[in-house]
């Protein structure tokens, strides 16, 4: 029944794209983190994002189920970008399967970035699985956010507000 994430968008989110997210921190400020990989449930109703708590404590410390979160996924070679907004269903330490997804993502996106001329040092600074968390998101709306005047349009009908 969930039509927020269509199959194309799901495939895009699981491809080697850059994933950034924002939450409301414990200090009630916007806080930013990078995720190392996304995994959609088969029905696309749930998206798991993997985030290093060691690197992004402001964004993930104290996050509780029900918290609002925004995720932007961007394909570095062409800047195709979408934003997905939703609520957290669960926050848990990553298990072995999660680590496998994150590991696969990191090597794939590392290759994409390297081909674009990003150095190993830069890539290594952004991608880590240290103290990895699994953030389980229930997507509620999706927006086109490729840079340009069209940014902010709802990707799915019925989505409220602009990104």
């Amino acid at each position, binding site marked *: 029944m969930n039509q927020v994430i269509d199959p194309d968008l799901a495939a895009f989110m699981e491809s080697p794209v850059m994933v950034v997210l924002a939450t409301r921190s414990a200090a009630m400020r*916007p806080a930013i983190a990078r995720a190392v990989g996304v995994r959609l449930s088969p029905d696309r109703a749930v998206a798991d994002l993997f985030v290093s708590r060691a690197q992004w404590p402001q964004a993930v410390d104290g996050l509780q189920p029900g918290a*609002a979160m925004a995720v932007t996924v961007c394909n570095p070679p062409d800047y195709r970008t979408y934003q997905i907004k939703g609520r957290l269903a669960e926050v848990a330490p990553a298990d072995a399967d999660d680590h496998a997804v994150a590991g696969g993502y990191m090597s794939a996106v590392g290759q994409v970035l390297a081909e674009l001329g990003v150095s190993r040092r830069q890539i290594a*600074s*952004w991608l880590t699985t240290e103290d990895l968390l699994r953030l389980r998101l229930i997507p509620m709306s999706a927006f086109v956010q490729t840079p340009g005047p069209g940014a902010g349009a709802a990707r799915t009908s019925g989505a409220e*507000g602009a990104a």
Partner: protein
Amino acid sequence: MSIPLRRLGNCFEGVIPSIVATLDTNGIPNVSYLSQVHMVDDDHVALSNQFFSKTLANVQETGRASVLVVDGRNGDQYELDLEFERATQSGETFARIALHIEATAAQHGSGIAWGLRSADIYRVVDCRAVPSPPDVADEPVEPVRGDILPAAARVVSDIAAAADPDAMLDRVLDGLTQDFGYSNAIVLVMDGRGDRLTTLGSRGYPLGGVGSETPLGLGAIGMAAATGRPVRISDMSRGRRFAAAVRGDAGPDPSRIIPLPGLAEPQSQLAAPMISHAQTRGVLFVEDEQRFRFTQADEDILVMIAAQLAACLRLWDLEGAGGSRPASDRAQAAAPGPAFRVRYYAFDDSLFIDDAYLIKGVPGRLLFYFLTAHSETGRVDFTNRELRLDAALRLPDLKDNLETRLILLRRRLEEKAAPVRLTRPGRGHIRLELSGVPHLEVVAGPA
């Protein structure tokens, strides 16, 4: 402890996109990429307001944003907590961002001018380093070049100490390539009409391109000249090469075009206006095939050297009363070499030697003047003063830039290995040297 922004210089180059996050009044986050965060001072940044509308709406509601900026050299990340202060539609910061956006848009060849509505100024209430994984230390950092300030001081002093404008120009070109290690450099001067720039000299290209032209307002060079501000582009890989489009602009008559020197695949470009007495008199330009080649420090250095060169060239022209009479009135005996044909088109002052295009405009008119005087009287010695005073030259705009036109002409003759050359036996003097006998021909209208 909040980190001072000036220590984050490499984060504001726009190499790695920044990220901005906001909350609406219900606490719902929004997260978006933005191409560049601009540093205003140690605790203020500016964000360009072009089209991130939800971010803007949230900031209007809450006055807050967070941005993540990334060091373009080593990948280090910093999160900045921001409080909105004001939107500005004018002033230094606005002009700098607007020019950057325009230059980048032009570079991408999109043809879309996403106008800058305002530059939004934020106070940085906190700046935190994002911890990098410990194994990052194993990866090499892009090498940082040594402090370039001592080299800048050397070059600037040498320009001031140079004996004549030719030496100044060579010192600048050598300085850019040798002292600073830039692979490709060009010095251009503004055309008398103020709508084009003409190449005075270059380094690093297969063809020197002396006398080649590029229009005002186009490309990094043209935009620096048009706005009087430096233009720096760090990554040209994202779109069509604008420089190529400029080079393809052959104009109405391709037979009178000298190709502008330029890299086929530039990634980084930096152009600084040569300003003196509140007027843009030319542009210093460097480019490179590497991305992120030029930093803020390179921009500062180029601005400094450009100003010094502009001031020294202008001073030379203003003091150019030297050589009030010709060094000698001696006539040169008929040159021993073979005859050559000089064809002069009065309508655009273009000059051809043995059917090969040499130059047009003021330098063309000057050379024709020398050759005519020589053919009538045998004279080979001339002075700057007589050139300024001679009504026949019709040179009202030469007061400020005679020297640069003479340099242009002299270097073009050398580059073409022409049978006529100019030398400078003393300050304010010009000597014609012929290795053949010129036969002059005047054409009134276009060929």
